[in-house]
């Protein structure tokens, strides 16, 4: 386990690698209603990489994804986050999305009466507007939809139904991946995408993600369990505990956690404090 190192508060890219980062999180601290949740996160993510973030309940995993995506309930008290060198924290949630941040929700939201098609058309055109482009022609848009649907093996009937309404757990998660395919983000954050999925759905969702992986985009995969990482194999695994990344390593760290649980890490952290 020589690759596992404790990073603590130091500002280092994982495993000490250097290079142009896509996402750079420095000493990020955030709280909600006065309760401190993130206590100095440091993380560098380069294009083409997949980072898994694991950790026990209450470690701050979902908070990290919410803060990155710009959810307003959280107050960032310290630190910085940049995407391609641009200050992310300064942007509204919608601008972050238009800049290429995508969050696959743990619990995708239902919007009655709005079809996935209509929703995505709005989203795609809002992004284009932001980029100074004309709205997409309806026929081009539908063609793109068909292409991406095939690509992620999404059931056609889902796109005409109200967004996520009455979808099964698996359908909702696949719809998230489909949206990801449509919006072509630079950075995708998968927030416990494996939760509530049976093994077949998990495989389908993972295959979708793997197909979308490229040298130009990056993934942060937040998960409680190792099993997702059997399908989406990460380049790096980080353990989040008490609002900090307390351990980083490669895919084998996830396997070790699966075997030994989190207690040994907790003990290690407590001992060093």
């Amino acid at each position, binding site marked *: 386990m020589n690759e596992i190192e404790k990073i603590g508060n130091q500002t280092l890219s994982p495993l000490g690698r250097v290079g142009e980062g896509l996402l750079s999180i420095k000493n990020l601290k955030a709280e909600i209603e006065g309760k401190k949740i993130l206590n100095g996160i440091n993380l560098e993510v380069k294009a083409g990489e997949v980072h898994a973030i694991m950790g026990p309940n209450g470690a701050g995993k979902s908070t990290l994804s919410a803060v990155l*995506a710009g959810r307003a309930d959280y107050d960032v008290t310290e630190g910085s986050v940049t995407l391609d060198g641009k200050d992310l924290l300064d942007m509204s949630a919608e601008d972050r*999305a238009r800049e290429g941040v995508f969050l696959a929700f743990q619990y995708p939201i239902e919007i009655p009466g*709005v079809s996935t098609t*209509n929703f995505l058309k709005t*989203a795609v055109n809002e992004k284009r507007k932001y980029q100074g482009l004309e709205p997409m022609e309806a026929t081009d848009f539908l063609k793109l939809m068909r292409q991406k649907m095939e690509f992620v093996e999404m059931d056609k009937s889902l796109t005409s139904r109200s967004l996520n309404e009455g979808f099964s757990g698996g359908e909702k998660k696949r719809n998230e991946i489909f949206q990801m395919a449509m*919006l072509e983000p630079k950075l995708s954050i998968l927030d416990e995408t494996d939760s509530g999925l049976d093994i077949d759905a998990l495989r389908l969702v993972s295959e979708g993600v793997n197909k979308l992986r490229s040298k130009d985009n990056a993934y942060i995969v937040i998960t409680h369990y190792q099993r997702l990482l059997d399908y989406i194999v990460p380049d790096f695994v980080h353990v989040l505990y008490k609002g900090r990344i307390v351990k980083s390593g490669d895919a084998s760290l996830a396997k070790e956690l699966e075997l030994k649980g989190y207690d040994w890490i907790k003990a290690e952290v407590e001992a060093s404090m």
Partner: protein
Amino acid sequence: MSENQEVDIIDEVISQDYKYGFSTDIEMETAPMGLSEEIVRFISAKKNEPEWLLEWRLKAYRYWLTLKEPTWQNFSYPKVNYQDIIFYAAPKQKITLDSLDQVDPELLKTFEKLGISLTEQKRLTGVAVDAVFDSVSIATTFKDQLKEKGVIFCAISEAVHEHPELVRKYLGSVVPATDNYYAALNSAVFSDGSFVYIPKGVRCPMELSTYFRINAENTGQFERTLIIADDNSYVSYLEGCTAPMRDENQLHAAVVELVTHNHAEIKYSTVQNWYPGDKEGKGGIYNFVTKRGICEGSHSKISWTQVETGSAITWKYPSCILKGDYSTGEFFSVAVTNNHQLADTGTKMVHIGKHTKSRIVSKGISAGKSHNTYRGLVKVNKKAEKSRNHTQCDSMLIGDRSGAHTFPYIEVNNNTSQVEHEASTSKIGEDQLFYCNQRGIGTEEAIGLIVNGFCKEVLNQLPMEFAVEAQKLLAVSLEGSVG
């Protein structure tokens, strides 16, 4: 989202400007302020009306004097002083026009600005328009094409002269002058509005539409619309309305009467966007309207669709009297209130004939400090055997200072009929907004999207040409509100 942020965004909505708030500077001829028998005679004389109609008006006026303003509504408002209202205002020009060349260019420009083109080349294809400016009809398009099919579409003041037998037969036959306070007032002072007659067996070849514009200060608009669909005929009719921004409240008390004979159908759609008042609730239109249709013949159908986004107060219940056996009544409604707007709206479905059917879909959306009330009556008479009603009544709240209220009345007098009522209340959730934001959709667009989704069933009922407009209107009326 913290409470402060929420309030900020709601404030943003509230400062949203009313797009149609401009006024037209044009020379007007008006009646002296206030209401009296002289004024009623003045209006009748202006229109060169036959004696019977003057008598009808005077009878209504005298009856109105004996009435008190109703007080059962679910809102309060400062008393209307009827002596402070001008009951007749017309642009100075010949009332009957041979061609549009004679219309004051200012008026054409006004309607142009409202997106209603009366000039030949820019007409909305497939839609005939009657444009009513304050108390008079300015122009009706496509009249000749309609005439070929025997369809009559003209200003009611013109119909009084051209088709007196029809007007006399049907005027007040659905909403009698004695029906209620505002109907009596309207019957006494109504100035213009549209008249439609579809002859037997004719399917009206285009959408008919009336556009109402209040312009003059201190005036009320009291239009009267009468639509008759004879046996086996069909017509789709749409009305739209706007008014300038003025500090005082202006009264709009219209009466609409619909009659369908055997196997005939009328589809009546309204997109109501009267000036709603400013964010403190100052100014705006009082929209106190009586709309009722009677399915006189068997297998006939009346369908009301309304999108109500304007007015300081909306108080109306487009209703159906289902007299013919196997007749059908429908009511599809979207009512949006924001800031200090108040809406008390719904429908009455009165089942008289056997095997009659009615369907009610009401969507109320309340934002700001507004209140939105659904009030409906489903009444099934003893002889209306095997009748059916289905009512669905959904409310959506935006922010935490608005209110939604529902008063359904159901009265069933036989045991072979079926009445169903479904209701729901929801809020635009922070989660829904964040989900949209996270996909790059800004909060204002997101609200538009969510609200349009909520109203989809109703919007789908609108004629295509207007559905898109209505969708945009919904988004604009709610821009920036948050839950």
